């Protein structure tokens, strides 16, 4: 047997979380990291400051060429990669910015998943290949002004009129809502909650951009208003039935967040490690002070534990054994870990940490959205509580 040398941990992958990844997953990770560092990172602070993505179509095309949209879906022009590979892509994108990972989550995990799971063959053929290629953008409208954590209380209604449907209501906080070519809209019907495909430009449908956000600024968020929107019979997603349909899509997107949060955390930790090593106060690098070392230790533990959590949930998913409570665990644990890391990393940066010259405050405020959408921290705590006690405390 050949002698194996024990090497000290790599500060950038302390527990060697990535060491057992097969070649394909490594290739996908490296490709996304390379793309993100070259094409996204140099621009993201400007986009964040401007409070928008200036060229969403160009960005969608670039993501489409890479193959990241719906990458874990098989067929219809999608790559058919593993759940872990999809997770790695989310991790590397969110290491740049949560808003950019959100772009991919909404397109791939929410809009495309809804069409893939519940759409007719015609709907799939019409939308999925173009969405995979980034030629068409989709959004996902579930939340309303008066219904967030409790989507079952939605007021948007679709009623039958002959063979047509007529849609009335308002959706709120819809990522990519004003740039989408097609909105997947959830509405109450006489037959329970159902999904509809509403193309942009349909008479009576307007999208209004939401301004004054202090979080997820490198992302477009909109309000969707439906005022007597007449839709043909084939706008209905025929397979959708009940609240479980949109919730199953959210579960896919949340899975991406479990990984994405690791990326945001890692980026903050790495920025802090680098800053602490070069910033000198009291005659030496601040990395040499005990309090700073405690911060770095806390951060490296959070980043690696979150990384392991994501990988384990990914492996469960690839084995077909991932329950939605596993995903709740991952979102609850990893987003909170990322928030701790971001806050700590920001403190290490002193005054520099409050600017866009460094990524830490940007990540820190982005994570407020990440902790809120796709089920708030509280709701995931409640679903974990329900899972371990068998008692529902919230519905």
């Amino acid at each position, binding site marked *: 047997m050949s002698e194996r040398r024990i090497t000290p941990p790599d500060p950038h992958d302390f527990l060697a979380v990535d060491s057992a990844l097969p*070649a*394909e997953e490594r*290739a*996908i990770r490296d*490709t996304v990291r*390379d*793309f993100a560092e070259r094409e996204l990172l140099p621009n993201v602070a400007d986009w964040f400051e401007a409070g928008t993505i200036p060229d969403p179509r160009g960005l969608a095309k670039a993501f489409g*060429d*890479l*193959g*990241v949209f719906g*990458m874990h879906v098989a067929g219809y022009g999608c*790559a*058919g*990669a593993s759940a872990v*590979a999809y997770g790695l892509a989310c991790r590397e994108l969110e290491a740049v910015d949560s808003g950019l990972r959100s772009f991919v989550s909404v397109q791939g995990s929410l809009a495309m998943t809804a069409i893939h799971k519940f759409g007719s063959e015609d709907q799939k053929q019409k939308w999925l290949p173009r969405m995979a290629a980034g030629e068409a953008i989709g959004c996902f409208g579930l939340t309303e002004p008066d219904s967030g954590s409790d989507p079952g209380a939605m007021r948007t209604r679709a009623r039958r009129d002959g063979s047509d449907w007529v849609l009335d209501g308002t959706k709120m906080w819809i990522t990519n809502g004003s740039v989408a070519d097609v909105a997947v809209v959830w509405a109450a019907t006489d037959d329970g909650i159902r999904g509809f495909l509403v193309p942009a430009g349909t008479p009576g449908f307007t999208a209004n951009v939401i301004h004054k956000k202090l979080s997820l600024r490198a992302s477009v968020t909109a309000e969707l208003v439906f005022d007597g929107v007449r839709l043909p019979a084939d706008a209905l997603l025929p397979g959708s039935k009940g609240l479980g349909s949109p919730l199953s899509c959210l579960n896919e997107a949340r899975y991406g967040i479990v990984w994405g949060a690791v990326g945001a955390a890692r980026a903050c930790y790495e920025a802090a490690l680098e800053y602490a090593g070069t910033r000198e106060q009291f005659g030496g690098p601040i990395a040499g002070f005990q309090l700073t070392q405690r911060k770095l230790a806390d951060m490296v533990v959070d980043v690696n534990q979150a990384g392991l959590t994501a990988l384990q949930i990914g492996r469960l998913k690839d084995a077909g054994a991932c329950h939605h409570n596993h995903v709740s665990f991952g979102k609850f644990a990893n987003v909170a870990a990322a928030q701790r890391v971001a806050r700590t990393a920001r403190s290490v940066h002193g005054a520099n940490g409050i600017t866009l010259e460094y990524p830490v405050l940007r990540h820190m405020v982005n994570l407020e959205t990440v902790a809120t959408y796709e089920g708030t921290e509280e709701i995931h705590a409640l679903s974990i509580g329900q899972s371990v006690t068998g008692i529902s405390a919230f519905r």
Partner: protein
Amino acid sequence: MNIVVLVKQVPDTATERKLSSDDNTLDRAASDGVINELDEYAIEEALLLREKHGGEVTVLTMGPDQATDSIRKALSMGADKAVHLSDEALHGSDALQTAYALSKALGTVEFDLVVLGSESTDARTGVVGAALAEYLGLPQLTLAGKVDVDGSAIKVQRQTDYGYDVVEAQLPAVVSVVEKINEPRYPSFKLIMQAKKKPVQKLAIADAGIDAAGVGLANATTETVDFAAAPPRAAGTVVQDEGDGGVKAADFLAEKKFV
């Protein structure tokens, strides 16, 4: 038109590179291997030419087992198949021996055009393309910033200090490319997923008819006699601007022969 792209795996320029003290050769295990940057431009050009003229793109790599990662990346960018020349006997081969070995390996593939990067980031000799063309007895078109193929005629813009020369030849030919030529694509996930199904032919030196006496460290035509770490950077010179800062800056550049 069938194209062979020569792809070399080199140590990542972003990491610290080391020579091995045993035999003064590059320690390829000490740092991550990546595709030599200019070879990515060569791959891109081959793919663009295939998109225009049809045919197949074959990757040819000479290097140890770990070069498989680079081959896989080239296949993930869109190359059709690969030939991997790997043999203990090749260890320590210099640029001329490498060109000889590659010329023999090319004998196992049908091609109309060979494309390669004009130099590698590790050795930076820049002679492999020329030596290879010589061994093959084919025209060499070096430092190409633009390539056009029309039937069996090939025309390139060869980048020079003063602009470019237009150089023409008949296929088959060897073309080395410079960075200006294109913008290499990212591998796509779909192609990454397909890469492992693409054929990779492993060649030992005997399979390619390579004479063991013509390759390897012991037979190299050049020798690394010694090496030393680069000296630490000397402190910079501070020039006080007393109204003549521009003149001083120009003098400095002239002294260093930049202007």
